[in-house]
Every structure is written in structure tokens, then in C-alpha cells.
């Protein structure tokens, strides 16, 4: 009896011991452990999309750093200290916008893709070698996109080219100088051009592959890569390569300028994309999936829309487009550039149609249609409250044309430059008198090009970087003039802007205090 019990007991214990090791292996349900991932092409797809999702948090920083320090916007009544410091060029190391975490998050996701996509097994139907290269190319594009913003804002930043995918390989690097980073970006993007496709093909229900315009607008395809490359070349004063890159976009033949003055459909670009062939690179949002950005909070003056009215158009904004109200019979008609009142900026809430309103509001992120000036209480075509999901225009064809003009001008082809700019102007009934001719100086033509850029791309996060580009070309007085115009002479002098802006280091943001504390190389 006793021995029998003994043996039974022993057997039970042995059995318990055998399954022991498996028992404590509990697979978590809320996360996926990284070593279980990248097993097939679906995983590669998800990781790619996860990297693109990293673009969405960048909007606030891109807009604020791209506009606040320049002359098209001013601090609104609801402004906070962070924005005010930027507007007055006295940014401290604790300013919210010196925190670059959102950029490095995107960079880390891109680095992760670059490292791990090659590990996904290839598959003749779903994931060929070509597809793998394409994904890596797109990751290179995303990484370059983030770094280019960092370089334009900080001038020199740590160049992180490997992902942080384990606590063993956490590396803190000293900042690399600007030209090293930009050289790397140029090399990466040039390589990416050989890896990505011209278009994105989607499998249709009938199993054929068809081109997806939405895919072309939102992912890294050759058009977008060339845009970014051209932007970098222009930043570095490399005009021939810039022109070559843009010519490649022209040769694709996928884009053209949308609309006409007669149809008055300029504003369609900002909310309806299906029939509009102008956009080149977009970052998309959708309130229904709670993918939103804070632009409504920043620019709207209506608290019912969640607007805090932190950023408003500068006071003398109407003059940029030569807008005027003209009495024509019973009605008021707006003359001048249609890209101004009703598209870029409007009057105050709730109808937004008062041309003479003291409070002006940026319209590109609020509106769903063009506003016509009126004294009547007409409900505006405005997005619904809190639905802050306007598209972010990364690059659009109008900007590409103007970039070509800029490159041609500096290459000496003045006639070519002027022709390019006129393509833009003729679209929207801008002033007929063209202020420059082939006999004007390069600088004069350049001024004309940049004024056109400001009018076309108002409030799209480009203005400050344009001014900075000019300043880097040896023309800092334009930057100073612009700021002086917006701030007013009194404030300009009170803040000692003249001497401050004379030092090129002050055109960039300081490193964030917390970052410096954690990464001693940044001191």
C-alpha cells in the first residue's frame, strides 16, 4: 500500500515537473512582443503604416515653428507663453517647441523599419524583394522628412540612424553639424529614388492592380521624394540639382495646377482631394477615427469650436493679396487675389464674412468652402465643432512650380523663372501688372517669387523657412524687415531684434533643457 502510494506520488510530481516550463509562459494579450513580429508581409505592412502614423503628431510643431516667428501670423488673444516666446524671438530652453520628441519618434519608427524589413521573408506574390526595397525607401523618405525639419529648426542635432529597439543599445550622440546631416539625407533620398515606385498600386476587387491617387498623395513615391530632395537642395543653394529633381516631377505628368479664377474653386484644394490633382504630399486626418490635430484650437476664435484663438493672421494681412471690396450695384464684390480673403483668412465668428473685421481668423484649417464677403448673417461653410481634421499640405504642385522658378532664377534663367511664376498668377486672377522683367536683377525676381510663395502658401507652415532660406543666401534684411513689419517698430526695438537677428545662431531654436540634462553631449 505504502509503496504503491509512493510510486503514484512520484509519478505525479514528475508530471508536474514536465509541464512546469510551459506553464509560466503566458502570452500577453494587450501587446505583441517584438520577437514574435515581422514574420510575414502583413507585419511589414502594419509596421509601415505605424511609421506613417508618426507623421500625425508633427503638425502642431510644423505649423508653429513654420509660421510663428515670421510675418504672416501674430499671437492671438488666447496665446500662451510658448507661442509668445516664439513670436518675439526670445525662446527659452523650457519652451514646449524645443522638445523634439515627436520628430525622433518618427525617426525611430523609420529606423526600425529600415532595420527589420529585410528580415521579413520574401514571397513571390505578396512581398517580393522589390516590395521590401520599396518599404525601406519609404522609411528613408520619412526619416529624411523628420530630419529636414529638425535641421531647419535647430541647425545641428544628433544624427540617429539606428533604431532604439532594446535597452542594451541606447546611444546618446553629440549633435552632428548641419552639412553632415544634409549630406546623409541627400544620399538617402537619392537611394530612395531607386527603391520607391512612381505610384502606389492597390489590388482591386477584380484582382487587378490599379493606381491609387490617395496612395500617391500620402506615401513615399518618387514625386514626394523628389519634392523633399528639391527642398533640401534649395536650402543648400544647390540650384541645378533642385531643378533636375523638379523636372522629374514635371515629367511624371501626374500633377497639374488645379482650378481657375473663374471657377473660384481654389479652396477645394484644402478639403476635397479626390478630384484635385494638385497635391503631392499630404498628411491626413479624420475625426471619425479620432485622428485629429490641434489646429482648430490654435486658430479658431470660437470657444464653441474649442478654439482658443492663440494664433491669428497679422494685422496688415489684407494688403498682401490686394483685396478690396468694391460696390457693384447692390452687392459687394471682392477684387484682388482670390487666395486672400475667403480662402487664407476671414473675418470673425460666427459668420466670418466681415471683411473689415478687427479680429481676423486663419481659414485654411476651419473651413469647408470659400467665404464671400458680406454684411449678412450667412452660415459659413465651416467644419463641425471640434472636428479638427483638415489635411496638412506637405507639398503641392503650386509650390513645386515656385521652387522651379526659384532654382531657375538663381541659375540665371530669368525668363524661365518668370514664366513659371506666371503659371501660378494666371490661375487666380492676380494683379495683371507683372512687376519684374528679364531685365530685373536676380534679387528682384527672387523677391517676386517669394512674395508669390507667401501669397500662395499662406499659413501652410512655410513662411519662416522661406525667410530663413533667403537669409542664408546672404539676404537677412528680408527676414528682419518682415519681422519688423509684423511686430511694429516699437516692439522690434524694445526687444533688440536688430542685434539679435544679426547673429545667425539666433535664427534657430535652443536645445530643450530636459534633453540637455539627459544627454550631456548636447551641452
Amino acid at each position, binding site marked *: 500500500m505504502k509503496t504503491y502510494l509512493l510510486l503514484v506520488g512520484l509519478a505525479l510530481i514528475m508530471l*508536474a515537473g514536465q509541464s512546469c516550463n510551459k506553464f509560466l509562459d503566458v502570452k500577453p494579450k494587450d501587446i505583441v512582443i517584438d520577437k514574435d513580429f515581422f514574420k510575414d508581409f502583413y507585419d511589414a505592412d502594419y509596421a509601415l*503604416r505605424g511609421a506613417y502614423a508618426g507623421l500625425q503628431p508633427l503638425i502642431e510643431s510644423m505649423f508653429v515653428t513654420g509660421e510663428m516667428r515670421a510675418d504672416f501670423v501674430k499671437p492671438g488673444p488666447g496665446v500662451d507663453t510658448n507661442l509668445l516666446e516664439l513670436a518675439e524671438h526670445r525662446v527659452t530652453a523650457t519652451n514646449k517647441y524645443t522638445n523634439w520628441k515627436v520628430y525622433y519618434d518618427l525617426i525611430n519608427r523609420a529606423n526600425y523599419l529600415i532595420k527589420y524589413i529585410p528580415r521579413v521573408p520574401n514571397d513571390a506574390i505578396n512581398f517580393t524583394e522589390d516590395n521590401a526595397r520599396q518599404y525601406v525607401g519609404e522609411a528613408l523618405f520619412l526619416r529624411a522628412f523628420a530630419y529636414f525639419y529638425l535641421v531647419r529648426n535647430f541647425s545641428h542635432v544628433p544624427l540617429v540612424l539606428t533604431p532604439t529597439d532594446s535597452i542594451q543599445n541606447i546611444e546618446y550622440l553629440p549633435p552632428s553639424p548641419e552639412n553632415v546631416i544634409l549630406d546623409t539625407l541627400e544620399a538617402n533620398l537619392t537611394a530612395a529614388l531607386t527603391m520607391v515606385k512612381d505610384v502606389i498600386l492597390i489590388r482591386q476587387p477584380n484582382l487587378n492592380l490599379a493606381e491609387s491617387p490617395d496612395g500617391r498623395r500620402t506615401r513615399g513615391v518618387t514625386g514626394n521624394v523628389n519634392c523633399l530632395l528639391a527642398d533640401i537642395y534649395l536650402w543648400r543653394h544647390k540650384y541645378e540639382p533642385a531643378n533636375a529633381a523638379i523636372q522629374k516631377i514635371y515629367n511624371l505628368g501626374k500633377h497639374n495646377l488645379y482650378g481657375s479664377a473663374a471657377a473660384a474653386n481654389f479652396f477645394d484644394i484644402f478639403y476635397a482631394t479626390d478630384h484635385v490633382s494638385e497635391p503631392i504630399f499630404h498628411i491626413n486626418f479624420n475625426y471619425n*477615427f479620432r485622428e485629429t490635430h490641434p489646429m482648430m484650437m490654435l486658430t479658431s476664435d470660437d470657444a464653441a469650436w474649442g478654439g482658443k484663438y492663440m494664433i491669428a493672421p497679422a494685422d496688415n494681412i489684407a494688403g498682401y493679396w490686394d483685396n478690396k471690396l468694391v460696390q457693384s450695384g447692390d452687392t459687394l464684390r471682392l477684387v484682388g487675389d482670390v487666395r486672400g480673403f475667403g480662402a487664407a483668412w476671414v473675418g470673425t465668428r460666427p459668420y466670418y464674412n466681415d471683411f473689415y473685421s478687427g479680429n481676423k481668423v486663419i481659414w485654411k484649417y476651419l473651413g469647408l468652402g470659400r467665404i464671400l464677403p458680406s454684411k449678412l448673417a450667412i452660415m459659413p461653410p465651416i467644419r463641425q465643432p471640434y472636428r479638427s481634421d483638415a489635411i496638412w499640405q506637405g507639398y503641392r504642385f503650386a509650390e513645386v512650380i515656385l521652387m522651379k522658378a526659384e532654382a531657375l532664377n538663381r541659375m540665371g534663367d530669368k525668363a524661365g523663372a518668370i514664366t513659371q511664376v506666371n503659371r501660378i498668377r494666371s490661375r487666380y486672377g492676380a494683379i495683371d501688372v507683372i512687376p519684374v522683367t528679364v531685365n530685373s536683377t536676380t534679387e528682384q525676381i527672387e523677391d517676386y517669387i517669394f512674395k508669390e510663395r507667401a501669397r500662395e502658401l499662406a499659413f501652410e507652415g512655410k513662411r519662416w523657412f522661406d525667410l530663413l532660406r533667403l537669409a542664408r543666401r546672404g539676404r537677412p534684411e528680408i527676414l528682419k524687415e518682415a519681422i519688423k513689419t509684423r511686430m511694429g517698430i516699437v516692439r522690434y526695438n524694445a526687444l533688440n531684434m536688430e542685434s539679435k537677428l544679426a547673429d545667425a545662431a539666433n535664427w534657430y531654436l535652443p536645445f530643450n533643457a530636459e534633453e540637455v540634462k539627459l544627454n550631456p553631449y548636447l551641452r
Partner: protein
Amino acid sequence: MFKINPHSAVVAVCILSLLCLSNKVNAQKKKADEIKPDVNPILIPIPSSEPKVELGYLRVKKSNVSAAVSVVGEKSIDELMAVSIDALLQGQAAGMQVTNVSGAPGSGALTTIRGASTLHAGTLPLYIVDGIPVKTYRFINPLGRNVDNNPLADINPGDIASITVLKDAQATALYGMRGANGVVVVTTTGGTAGKTYLDFSAYSGIISAPKQLAVLNADEYRDYIIEKETARGLSQSEITNGVGRYLLMMTPENQLQRYNNNTKWQNEVLGNGAINNYHLRLRGGDAVAKYSLSVGYTNQAGAIDNSKYERFTARFNLDYKVNRRLTILNTIAYSHGARNVVDEGNVPETNPLYLATLKSPVLTVWSQDAEGTNLSSVDSADYAGKNNPYAVVNKMKNINSSNRIMAGITGQYILSPFLTISSGIYADYIRLNETRFRPGAGFMPEEEIIRSASENNSNELMLLNENSLQYNRTFEKHSLNVFVGNAVQTTSQRNEFAMAINSPSDEFTSISATDPQLIDSISSYEPDWRLMSFFTGANYAYKERYLLGANIRADGSSRFAKGKQWGYFPSVSAGWRISAEPFFKAKKIINELKLRVSYGLTGNQEVGYNGAYNALVPAIYKNQPGVRLGALGNPDFTWEKTRQFNAGIDVLLLKRISFTADFYIKNTNDLLNYRKLAGTTGFDSYVVNDGSVKNTGVELTVSGKVLKKKLGWQTQLTVAFNKNKITSYPQGEDPTENYGYYQTSAAPGSAIGAFWGYNALGVYSSTDEVQVKNGVNNVHPFQGGDIVFEDVDQNGVIDEGDMKVIGNSNPDFFGGFSNTFSYKNFDLNIFVDFALGREVYNAQRASLEAMTNYDNQSVKINDRWRSNGDVSTMPRFLHNDPVGNTRFSSRWIENGSYLRAKAITIGYNIPTKETRKAFKNARILLTAQNLFSVTKYKGYGAEVGSITNPVTYSIDYGNVPQLRAFVAGIQVGF
């Protein structure tokens, strides 16, 4: 292939040797017919001559105990009428510090045994009820903000026979990775052989609303706001056209009635509550089967209108002796609880007590027409953005319902007179359903959300199998007890949450009534974990004089990375019963004198579930699935470890007075912490185990019958003193933790739960007195009427360098003092509990005396500084406070020490002569609970806790305090 686990091999060898040993010994002795197990590993009490102390896996004679434990008997439990057992233990066990979270019905407490020993991990002790390790940690993210859905409230205190608190390493090391915070072993009442007993008790009482805080009335409020607006520099016309419209300055005719009221909002939300508790227990049995059936019903209505707790419990215990060798012990309990909760903590929009004190008195509950007649709809949110407190309490739906089953079945088989094997299966299943509806009427919209309906369903199932083998033998001079066993446990939890917004009207309160487009969020959370253990131990007593104990437990937990899952937790103890020595002559007076020491290692595995892994999380783009690397894992992630040394002395004097003192040193290291990462890595931080804390303390328990004759006097005093010190913190990390409105510091040298802020010394009576700059740039200089902050680093600037430790949540001394006087059939019990040396952050007062916006304020602001030369303790008013007078400082930290008459009970035992025919015994009693409190605290009540921050928990945002109650009850036994 068969892979033999090393632990199971060891256990196998142990079992083999035990069986062999037993075999040999048995063969020499004659077989006894009557086989009576001496000690049971499982836990239904069996009456025996000498009282046994419940140690969880063992039950040992009191004289042989060499561990530090506190026993709380049935008498102490029954008449306290606490709703849950954690609140019940306040002041009852020396060293166990209990802080009630709030006085809301169904709320529980935060318990710490021998000091706080963690910064970020779990803080609660392990509760074992009849062998079942019950769920004590609350489900995270309750729908009622900061509400305590206390799982321990599911256990009816009326079912309990005794509670033992295990404090030192010798007792808790047997619980391995779950034992570092101490263990509480609860035993419920079992059956008896022979007679059948039926006990019934009923209590009913009134709970009174707390004393209201004094706030400004409508006139005082108007004067204060207008004066403040003028001081801001606004012109008279700006004021009249601005906030003046609401203050009867040019208020339009048709709105006059809305703004000319004088409402005491605290009256609108507070009221008296009631408590009813019924309990019925039937027990009996015979030599074969002993059973006990308890049924209980409690309902409690709280001081805030529409808050209540209702509970129904049923418990059945059965001891069934199948034959001479085999006994089956069975316990099953069902509990159903329903709560109507109100939000607590830092949610000024929906915490009724907090909101009621800040709401403008010029408004009133109902919308009114032009003549001032109340309409049927509530007044809407006001000019200061505040909701209508009446609507918050009466129109918001915040309902929880929980169902729970706890069951255990154990088989004990007596192999030989000295060898018993037992095997048990235990389960604990809890299901909590929460529903919340926040209507539009009376509420301010939150962004685009006008009204919202949410639901949260959580459930958790715990299954445990424990097997053990016990060998007990008493020889002439020696007695030996050896045991070995193993356990496997699996716990799986599932939480699901859904929220829908903007249903068509306030009548549509469920999620299904909302357009599916408006489903705002859905999420789920499913942590699962498993534990596998092997344990063994031995207790040896020589001549009942020299005691030795040793045990060790090996725990493997699935929370940690492979290869790092197993931990070993040994402990040793020794005891010396001096009173049993032949040279000890004073035995008549000192009946019992025992010295004991112990040392051991325990662990705390409540450090999360996924710390060891690199985690990929969803990252959606254009509503299509994507992933990203969301968190970095640390493969060395491990449990927190505690080493504890204990020395104690037990004395029994004159057979009546017993005295126990313990001294302990507890060192915890490998604290769960976070290492911050620079932004260039793309991550914020990752988990590390780095940091250590030391708790040193002394506990004292004195109890006894002082007088025994006609006037009886029984007394019990428990007191503990604990000193907590953080001994190390990760290199290079900032020990300050910022919670937004307050900060704590975990710097080496300070204690856990230390508030970190500025030291406010007073108020400048004139601007000439100011000698420091306000921040490096002095953008808003200090002037007369501003707070004097201490310049700690003496650099002439008040900035972060001047922050220091300004208080601590944990008390230095705490305990309870209970005295029972009896005369003939009457008795009077006075139970006082106290906690001294603790501070509370009175966040409610920080809002009531801020003077920065349009909220209503405390009457104390009438004493404020107004002009140069004024001497006051209240600074000047300052809209939006650019100077920072309201910053987190000692201005808001108050002395939270208190001494409270927790229960004063008068009882009368109806003499048996008169009731012999009807009842066996009958008792009537009257109790006053929380009758008075001696404290300097200025808020509603000094005792507050926080579910969301159990480490620095004394943060008072208008928590419901411990409420005064008057209860009458009867107990009858048939």
C-alpha cells in the same frame, strides 16, 4: 521528452524521504485506532484545549509561535459594524496601518503593514480567506472617478471568526513573492459538533452628514468678486458688462431671478444617511459532518444624496468526515454588491463635495422663470464653467454591480498518525459591471461631448491548487512539525470599456441608444499571470522551551522574462520560552515569558505584467491598422525584495494581562523605478529595479483584564512606531515626481510619500519687506500681501532650488485603544484609534483660498491682506495668480494627526432566566461611531486615501470623511 524541473525533483526527494521515514517509524509503533490529526494545513477551526494561532499554512500552539503575528478575535470584529474587513482592522493589529479611503458607502481602506516599502509597485498585503488568496487590488480605471470598488467589501465581516495578521519574515516568507507587504489570514466560522446554533443580529442606524465648510454667502461673494475685478484694473463699465452681469449689476430683467439667490450648495448635496445590517448564522453538525451557513444583508446610504451600497452575502462551510482517514473541507461563498457611487478626488467638475464648495452662491438648483418660480429643469452650468451640484448628484447615473464567488474544496487524508496529505482547489471569481451616464442638463460640455454614456465590465478568475504533506510528531522532549508542498495558481483578468457620446437627449442613457458613429472609444485590457510554487519548512520545539523554525519557498512567476522567473524566499526563526525554564521562579506572576527572533526574505511581484518585453502597440493611420514599438522592455525586470529582521518578546502576567513587543528592521531593494530617456531615442523611459528603502519600527500590544469582579474592565492597546527612509535611488534620475498640482520626492534620506514643495513662512505685510526675487527673471516680483517663501538655498531667488520636503502621508505613531467596562449585564466599550505625525495636502482648501478666479471661496478670505501694513496669514487676492502664491507649498499642507472615538458601544445582555424558553442568549446594543475626533485638520476629515496614488495618498479633494453614525442593534442566539 521528459524534462524534469529541478524544483519538482527536490520536492519529490523530500516526499520520498518523508514517506520512508514515516514508514520506518510506523513499523515500530503500534497502530492507534483513533487517528486524530494534530495540525491541519487548512483552516476550519477544530476546538481544542490550547488555543492555536493561524499561520496560514500551519496552525501552531500559541506557546510555540516564534513569528510576529497579531490576532484579532471575533468579539472585536462583530460589533464594530465596519462594512469591509480592511476598514475593520484599523487600530486592531499593532503595526498594521489602515487609512480609510473615504466615507462613501462601500469604500475600503489602504493598508500597510510595517511601513510603506515601495514607490511604484503594489502596496497591499495578501489576504487569505479560508485558504483562498482573494483579490484585493482594485480594478484599474473605475468609471466613477477615483471611486473605491473595494473587492474586500464582498466579504461579510459577520462571517468571520478570527483574523491573524502575519508581520515578520518567518510567517510571511511562506508566501514568497506575494508576502513582502505582509499577510492577513482570515478564518470564517465553521460548524460545531453536537448542538445546533442559530444566531441572528440586526443593526439599524442613522449616519449624519459631515459638518459643512464655511464658505461665502451671496452678498459676501459679490463684494469679493467686484473688489477683485476692480483691483485687476478693469474699469467700472468693463466690470458691469463683464462678470457684473451675473452679480446684479445691470443684469437683464429676464435673468434677474437666476442671479439673485443665496444658495448653500453643500446643503443640496449632503443629507443624512442610514445603515442597516442583518446577519443570520446557522451552524451545527455531528461527528461526521459539521456545517455553518451564514447569510447577510447590508445596506448603507451615504451622506451624499444618492450614494449607497447594498450587499447580499451567503456562505456555506462544510467539514465532512468521509471515513476515519479522509476529511473533505468545503467552503463556498457568494456575494452580490451594488453601489451608487459619486466621483471623488481631483475632478472638480463632478466631485459633488468639491464642486459644492466652489459653486457660486448666487445661482440656484432649478431654472426659474421671470417671477422666480422653479421650473422642472435644473439650472445649467454657469459663467464660471461649473456644473450644477444638484444635477451632479441627482441626474448623473453612476452605478456598479458586482457578483463574486469564492470557493474552496480541500481533501485531507491521514496516511499515518503523524503524516497527513492534503490537496485543495480554490477559486475566486469576481465580475464588476459599471455604468455611467453624464447628462447634458446642468453640465458643462467637455469639448464636443455634451452627454456621454460609458460602460466598463471587468472580471477576474483565480484558480489555485495547493498540495501539501505534513508530518507531526511529539516525542517526550521534542516536537517536530515538517511540511512540504506545492502550488499552482493562474489568474486571468479581462476589462472592457466602451463610451458613446451625444445621444439624442438625456432620456437616452445607454450606449445602445447612441448612433454607432458616436462610439467614442472602446478598449480592453487583459492581464493574465501565473504562479508556480514549491515550499517546505520545519518547526522544532525542545522541551517546549527552545523553538526553532525554518522554511523556504520557491516561486516562479510568469510576469518575468524566461530564465528570470524563479525566486527563493527562505526564513529562519528561534524562540526561547524563559518561563518554561526550571530556573525561572516567578512563574506565579509571570506566567509566560518568551523571546523570539526571526530573519527572512520575501518578495513583491505586483510590478506590472509586461515590463520584461519590448512591446509593439497599435498605431492607426487613416483608420487602418499599424503598429509601432511602444515600450522598451527590461529583461532583467524582477520583483522587489524585502529582507526583514524581527526581535520580539511575549509576556503574560497574572494570567490576565498579556504584553507583546516587537522590534523590526525591514530593507527593501530592487524597487520598481523608471529610467528616463532622452527624446532622441524616441521613448520616454523604461522600467528598472533600482532603489531601496528601509523601515525600522517598534510595535507594542498590551491587553488584559484589569478588573474582574463586579465591575469588569478589559483593555487592549496597540501602538506602533515606524520610521521610513529611502536609502538609495537610481543614479542620475530626478527623484521628484510631478503629479501636476503636487509633487513628491523620493530622494535618499527622505521618506516614501514625502510632499515636495516650497516652504511658506507667512505673508509680507508691506513691499519693503521683500528681499527675494520671484524666479530668476523676477517677471512678477513679490510685493506686500504675497506669501513669504523660504529661500532654502540662500541665493536670493525663489525657484526650484528652494523646494524641500514639507510633509509626509505616513504617520509616525498609530494604533488603537479599546476599553470595555462591564457591570452586571451592562457593558460599555470605548474604542479609540489614533494616527500621529502625518500630514495631509488639503487640495480643497487650496481651491477655496486661492482667490484667483470666479469660484466661491472660504469665509477665511475675509481676513486677507488688503493694504500695506496689514498683518495677516491670508495673502492678497490676485486674479490668475501670476506671482504664484497658490503654488504647491506648506501653505496647503496641514497636520493630519488625529485621535478619534471610533466606536462607543453600550450593550445589555438580557439575563438568561427570562429568555431561557425563547433564546439561548440575547443582547441589545447602541453604538455611536466616529462620535468625535481630536484633530487640527481644517477640511472635512483628516483621514483620506487615494486609490490612484496609494503611495502618497493623503490628498484631500473633498473626500467624504468618516461619518458619525448612531446605530442600535440586537443579537439573539437560538
